[in-house]
C-alpha cells in the first residue's frame, strides 16, 4: 500500500471573487507501516490538503494516487458523530464487518465500555474524540487519517490517547497521516515529519525520525526536539541571510 501525493496547486475563490492560493506545490509519499506527520501553523492549509488526499475535494491541480480499494479510517478535527445514533451504532455504521470481539477490545482499550449505549450529546469532548478514534480503528483501515485528534484536550488525557493511538497503530500495518500543530505529538508518534509553511502551504522540511516509536523515552524525545530546533533555527538563519 502506497500513497503518492503530488499537488501542484490549489486556489480558493473568496466571496469577493479574488482567488487565493491555499497550497503551493506539495509532493510526498508514504507506505504502509509509516506514520507521516504534517506539522504547520493554524490555517496554513493542512485540512484542505487532507480533503484533497481523501478525495473530498476534486477541485485541485495535480494528482493523488492511492489504491482505489483502500479502506480509510478518519478522525476529524471535530468528532463528527451522528447525534441520533448511540456510540455503538456510530461505530458499527462505519464498520459493519467488525466482529463483536473486535469492538469489545477497542471499547476496552479506549475505555468506552460504559458508554456504548449513550448518545454523543451525552458525552464530553474527550469521550467523543475517543469514540471517533474507535470508529476509525474499527474499520481496520489501510489508510488512517488523524486531523488534530488531540486538540483541545487536557495534557494528561492527550498523553493517554496518544499512547493509545501508538498502541493501535503498532497493532497492524497501516499507513497513517497525522495532522497536528503540536511538535510533541509529532515527535512522539511520527516516523517522518513534514513541516509546512504558512499559507500557501509548501513543505519546508522533511525530517525522518529513525528511533523506533517504542524506544522513544523522554530523553530521546528531548534529543529529537533539540535536533529539530537546531534545524529550524538553521533554516531561519538561512532565510535571514538570503
Amino acid at each position: 500500500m502506497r500513497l503518492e501525493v503530488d499537488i501542484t496547486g490549489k486556489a480558493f475563490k473568496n466571496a469577493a471573487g479574488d482567488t487565493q492560493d491555499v497550497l503551493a506545490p506539495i509532493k510526498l509519499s508514504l507506505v504502509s507501516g509509516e506514520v507521516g506527520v504534517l506539522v504547520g501553523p493554524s490555517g496554513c492549509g493542512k485540512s484542505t490538503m487532507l480533503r484533497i488526499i481523501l478525495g473530498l475535494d476534486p477541485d485541485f491541480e495535480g494528482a493523488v494516487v492511492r489504491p482505489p480499494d483502500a479502506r480509510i479510517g478518519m478522525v476529524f478535527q471535530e468528532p463528527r458523530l451522528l447525534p441520533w445514533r448511540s456510540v455503538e451504532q456510530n461505530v458499527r455504521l462505519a464498520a459493519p464487518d467488525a466482529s463483536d470481539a473486535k469492538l469489545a477490545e477497542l471499547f476496552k482499550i479506549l475505555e468506552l465500555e460504559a458508554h456504548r449505549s449513550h448518545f454523543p450529546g451525552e458525552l464530553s469532548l474527550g469521550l467523543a474524540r475517543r469514540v471517533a478514534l474507535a470508529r476509525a480503528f474499527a474499520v481496520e483501515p489501510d489508510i488512517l487519517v488523524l486531523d488534530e485528534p488531540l486538540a483541545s484536550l487536557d495534557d494528561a488525557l492527550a498523553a493517554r490517547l496518544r499512547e493509545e493511538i501508538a498502541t493501535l497503530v503498532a497493532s497492524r500495518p497501516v499507513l497513517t497521516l497525522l495532522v497536528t500543530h503540536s511538535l510533541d505529538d509529532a515527535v512522539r508518534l511520527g516516523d517522518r515529519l513534514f513541516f509546512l509553511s504558512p499559507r500557501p502551504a509548501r513543505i519546508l522540511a522533511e525530517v525522518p525520525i529513525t528511533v523506533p516509536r517504542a524506544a522513544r523515552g523522554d530523553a530521546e524525545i528531548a534529543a529529537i526536539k533539540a535536533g529539530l530546533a537546531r534545524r529550524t533555527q538553521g533554516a531561519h538563519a538561512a532565510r535571514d541571510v538570503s
Partner: protein
Amino acid sequence: MLRLLSFALFLAIWWIAALFVGGAKLPSPPAVLNVMLAEAASGALFLHLGATLARVILAFVLAMSLGSAIGYLMGRNRLADRLGDPWLILLLNLPALVVIVLAYIWAGLTEAAAIAAIAINKLPTAVVTLREGTRALDSALDEMATVFAIPRWRAFRHVVLPQLAPYIAAAARSGLSLVWKIVLVAELLGRPNGVGFEIGVAFQLFDTPRLLAYSLTFAAVVLVIETALVQPFEARATRWRPRAA
C-alpha cells in the same frame, strides 16, 4: 390533564354561547351529540367519515411521498431547484378552488380527479419544507459518510433521514390539516358522499346541528391521528436530543 381541562373550557364557552344565541344558529353540545348518535346509529356517519378519511389518506400519502422526493431533489441539486422553482411558486399561490374545479372539468367528477386535486394542493408545501430541510443538511456528516465509504442507502437512512425527520414531521402536521380542509371543498363540489357532501346538504337546509355533528366528528378523528401517529413519530425521531426543561 391540562389538555382535558382546556377541552372542558371550550365546551363550557360553547354551551354558554349557545344559551345566548339560541338553538337555531348555535345548537348546544347535547343537541349536536344527539345528531351524532342518530347518524352513527343509521350508519351514515361512518360511511361519510370513512369516505373522507380514505380520500385524506390517499391524497396525503401521495402528496407527502411525491413532495418529499421532489423537495429532497431540489435541495440537493441546483439545476432541479432552478427548474422547479417557478412551478413551485405557481402551485403555492394557486387557490385550492381553482385546482379542484379545473380537475373536475378536465378529468370529470371522478374519485381520481378529487384525490389528485387535493394532493396537488398539498404538494408544494411539502416540497418547500423538505427543500429547506435538505439545504440544512450537515455537509460535515456527508463527508464522514463518504470517507468511511458508507453505502448510499445506508448513509441516506442513518445520516440523512434523521436530519430530515423534524421537517417531515412538520410537513406531515401542516399537511394533515391542509388536506382535510381541502378534501371537504372537493367533496362539496363534486362527490356524492363524504363529510364535505354532508356539510353541503346541511348548508342547503340551514341544518346547523348536522353541520357541527359531522365537522366535529371529523376534527376528532384528525386529533386522534395527530396524537396517535404524528406525535409519537416526532418523539421517536427526536429522542436523542437532550430534553428541554
